[in-house]
């Protein structure tokens, strides 16, 4: 087998990624929250606290390191990024006050924009487009509701069609339909799933 050089050329990393990342979430969280990723000292307290990392290959610490150094493709393209349950345990314990979970959320937003949104997630999103609910009512529950003395449908978008139209309009205005790939004519996701 031929020997290949197995090193990372720091010069080849995307050094602008960190700014791109900060810019992506700055308007929502403010710059300090996102820049906190650069305060990470790789102590591993987050990873040791992470219930997801205890059963998967997901390593919070690695994501923060890669983000700071500019490993854009491997951070955004990694499936592991989606293994955080947003439990905030790491956020609570990080000794450097790195806003871990917020950072992960912004990275996921970037990943989605780069086309890394899982079909299962597009599906979840599509329910909101269609019904206003991520978990819409089904026949069985409607019967249970009546048995419990409740209205067949809750007083939500399920009962108020004009409210559903408002929700849909908001999502159109924010451009969420484009992000998810939702077709208003068919009221289904674009492309095959």
């Amino acid at each position, binding site marked *: 087998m031929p020997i290949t050089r197995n090193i990372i050329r720091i010069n080849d990393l995307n050094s602008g990624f960190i700014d791109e990342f900060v810019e992506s979430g700055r*308007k*929502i969280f403010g710059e300090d929250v996102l820049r906190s990723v650069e305060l990470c000292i790789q102590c591993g307290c987050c990873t040791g606290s992470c219930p997801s990392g205890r*059963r998967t290959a997901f390593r919070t610490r690695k994501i923060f390191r890669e983000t700071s150094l500019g490993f854009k493709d491997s951070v955004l393209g990694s499936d592991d990024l989606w293994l955080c349950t*947003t*439990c905030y345990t790491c956020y609570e314990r990080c000794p450097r006050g790195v806003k871990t979970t917020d950072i992960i*959320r912004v990275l996921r937003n970037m990943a*989605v924009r780069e086309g890394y949104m899982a079909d299962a997630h597009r599906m979840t999103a599509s329910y909101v487009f269609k019904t206003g609910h991520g*978990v819409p009512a089904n026949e069985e529950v409607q019967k249970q509701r009546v048995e419990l003395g409740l209205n067949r449908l809750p007083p939500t978008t399920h009962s108020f069609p004009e409210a559903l139209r408002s*929700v849909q309009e908001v999502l159109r205005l*924010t451009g969420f339909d484009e992000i998810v790939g939702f077709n208003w004519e068919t009221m289904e996701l674009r492309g095959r799933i």
Partner: protein
Amino acid sequence: MKEYATFLGCIIPNRYPGIEATSTSILKYFDIELLPINGASCCPAPGVFSCFHLESWLAIAARNIAIGEETGQDIVTMCNGCYGSLAEANHLLNGNKELKDKINEILSKVGCEFKGNSKIKHMIEVFSEDIGVKKIQESMKNTLDGIKVCTHYGCHFLKPSEIKKHGSSERPRFLDDIVRATGAESIDYKDKTMCCGFGGGVRAKDIDVTLDFTREKLKNIILAGGDCIVDQCASCHLEFDRGQAEIKKIYGEEFRLPVLYFTQLIGLGLGMEQKKLGLEFQNIPAQSLLDKINGGRK
């Protein structure tokens, strides 16, 4: 009579209506009225939608708050996820004028405005603060003596604690205090504050990972000798209840651990009929628990 605008979210009205029915009737008993927020939608789930597109998540959450605010009352949620979304949105928008203006510009197109005047509360606060442990204790009709409860706090009510400000996220106590008020015993178990596995979109995308969380928690609870789980979050509730059925399918393991939302436990203490609590519609039967309670009464 105190009134709250009730934000139902998705899982409670559309999967566990028993929680909605029980909570509403118990609050009425304690002289607290729940007003509907007509036309509310998905909160939307904090760890899911905010991960897809923060701005969309924020705009929908802001719309929910805005129509809730129109009731003139504070808003109460029953699910940590709903609480997490609405409370975080409230926090972000009230702390950032530019962001608030931007979101309001969107909302103005559908005729509403986020003002940020209402407090976002969780049902657990209504019980532990408005009603209080003492009053709950005094109203108990059925003793739950001898019942060993393992509480599960979930994540998004407590954390991040610097924003949510409900005290310790490592060793919280308020839910255990409520359990104790019913006469039941609250017992410790390993990794008590660990996440159930539901959040962050993991359940939708990698259910085996989610169920592995759930399974670990269930094992720890069984090991500690718990008779049931008591939670305060619709998502965790679904995870533990439906999750047990799914774990049985995937891993072949059966735990048969009844899962109760904390108002359902209080309902048992108040002597409410099982039917009214909606327990029989859940995946995991609560019979073992009910037997233990009734056995204890004899």
